[in-house]
């Protein structure tokens, strides 16, 4: 299987571990990710605060480039996933906006393309590969992991990436428990981490993140597993400030990192070295012959 890969800006900076682990997991499963040639920033939702048509136009440039490749596009960052899908929807339903954005793209010799599906890797793994195939490929036990599965905002709403209950998604729990981990019950799984408020109004963002971590620790989680580079960075930064509060440190991982470990990737391959809290949890090789079973 082959996909166009849209990393987004964060995966080349604060989210570098996400990029490494996504690539490692897809390679282990025999799928190819082809990075979108000369992609630009999706504009995030922040650009919409400044200029509307420009926000849609720069996002549409990526869709236009992806159209040439003709493959489904995988966007691991929740912000990119949402922004690109919002652009697709708005341009499909609104003729005037579509015409304006089309005219802007024509300045760079590009043509509007709205047929490329923009998908989140969690959904791609569950739908195109399926839990059974992933479990059959596992080589290591991740029974030490008691993750709090944290979905955050923009892959759940307004365009749910996975066909799931938007108030209580269970996709990650299903995947990780099938691989032998023990996800804890985590009620705030779709609450917001504060997003960009971490830079602008840090005291508000901190309040949200502290609650998310408290909740995980109260439920006995030994790590939080995320799907978004911004959620990961915001929560992980509390691991730096922990001296100021009574917080215990807790590793904040990407779902793809845990998945990669179960599939036999090394700690470096999935980028555990980039986390701000040391990860003492490990994956142990399965005894020969146990592959494929659940636990």
């Amino acid at each position: 299987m082959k996909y166009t890969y849209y990393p987004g800006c964060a995966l080349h900076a604060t989210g570098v571990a996400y990029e490494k682990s996504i690539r490692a997991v897809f390679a282990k499963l025999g799928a190819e990710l082809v990075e979108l040639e000369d992609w630009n920033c999706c504009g995030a939702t922040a650009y919409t605060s400044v200029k509307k048509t420009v926000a849609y136009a720069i996002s549409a440039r990526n869709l236009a480039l992806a159209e040439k490749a003709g493959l489904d596009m995988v966007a691991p960052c929740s912000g990119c996933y949402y922004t690109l899908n919002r652009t697709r929807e708005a341009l499909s339903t609104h003729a005037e906006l579509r015409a304006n954005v089309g005219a802007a793209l024509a300045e760079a010799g590009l043509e509007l393309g709205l047929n490329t599906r923009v998908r989140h890797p969690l959904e791609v793994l569950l739908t195109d590969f399926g839990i059974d195939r992933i479990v059959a490929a596992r080589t290591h036990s991740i029974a030490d992991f008691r993750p709090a599965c944290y979905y955050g905002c923009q892959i759940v709403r307004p365009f749910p990436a996975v066909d799931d209950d938007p108030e209580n998604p269970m996709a990650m729990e299903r995947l990780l428990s099938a691989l032998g981990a023990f996800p804890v019950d985590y009620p705030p799984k779709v609450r917001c981490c504060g997003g960009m408020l971490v830079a602008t109004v840090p005291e508000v963002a901190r309040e949200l993140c502290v609650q998310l971590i408290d909740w995980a620790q109260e439920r006995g989680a030994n790590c939080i597993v995320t799907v978004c580079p911004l959620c990961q960075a915001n929560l992980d930064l509390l691991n730096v400030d922990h001296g100021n509060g009574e917080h215990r440190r807790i590793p904040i991982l990407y779902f793809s990192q845990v998945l990669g470990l179960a599939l036999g990737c090394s700690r470096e391959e999935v980028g555990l070295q980039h986390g701000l809290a040391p990860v003492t949890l490990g994956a142990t090789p399965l005894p020969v012959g146990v592959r494929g079973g659940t636990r």
Partner: protein
Amino acid sequence: MRSLVVDHGGPLAPGVLSGTERDLREAFLRDIDRIPGAARLSQCIQCGTCTASCPVSFAMDLTPREVIAMFRAGAIEDLLKSRTIWLCASCYQCTMRCPADISITELLYAFKRMAIERDILPPKFPVHVLAETFARTVTRYGRNFETGLILSYYLRTQPSGLLRRRRAGFALWRHGRLPLRPHRINGLSGFRKIVARAEQFDLPQEPYEGLGSRETGHATFGR
């Protein structure tokens, strides 16, 4: 019937809009008319589900429900001066739960655009600078450059913030997560042409019939 035209200096009767308010209102409705879900503003039943769902409403001076109520009452300048629209973290919980199917998050983005365009901003709350700096960064490189974005945001708003965040910055850098140089896309000149052309559509459009005049009018529910 009594004329609705009133002096700008004097107090307004309830329900009567000043020229500025009317102008803001018309411009806003024109803007959101092109956003799916946001144009349903008139369907709001003031149930407060948005406020109850909002994770940051505890820090807001106006709740999301009140923002809609104030827009309908014609107090647009006051709501643009509130911190609320700049506290929204775009989590879309209100949008997803709204029983009237209003895209409240996108409404707040329309208010943000209007606030920046008209320079009507809350005092001592320069959150909009981040959005503007972000837009400039992206136009310059074609991609975001987080390190530069944060540096320039703090330098423009509160340089002391850089000192307070230095441990976080250092930790990220030490773990290989803070590139010190931006990445420029190859097609930067084409990218900038796209931005320049698209920007023309975002300029204030020709006013509708009689809109430019400083007349006043009644506040209406929604449209």
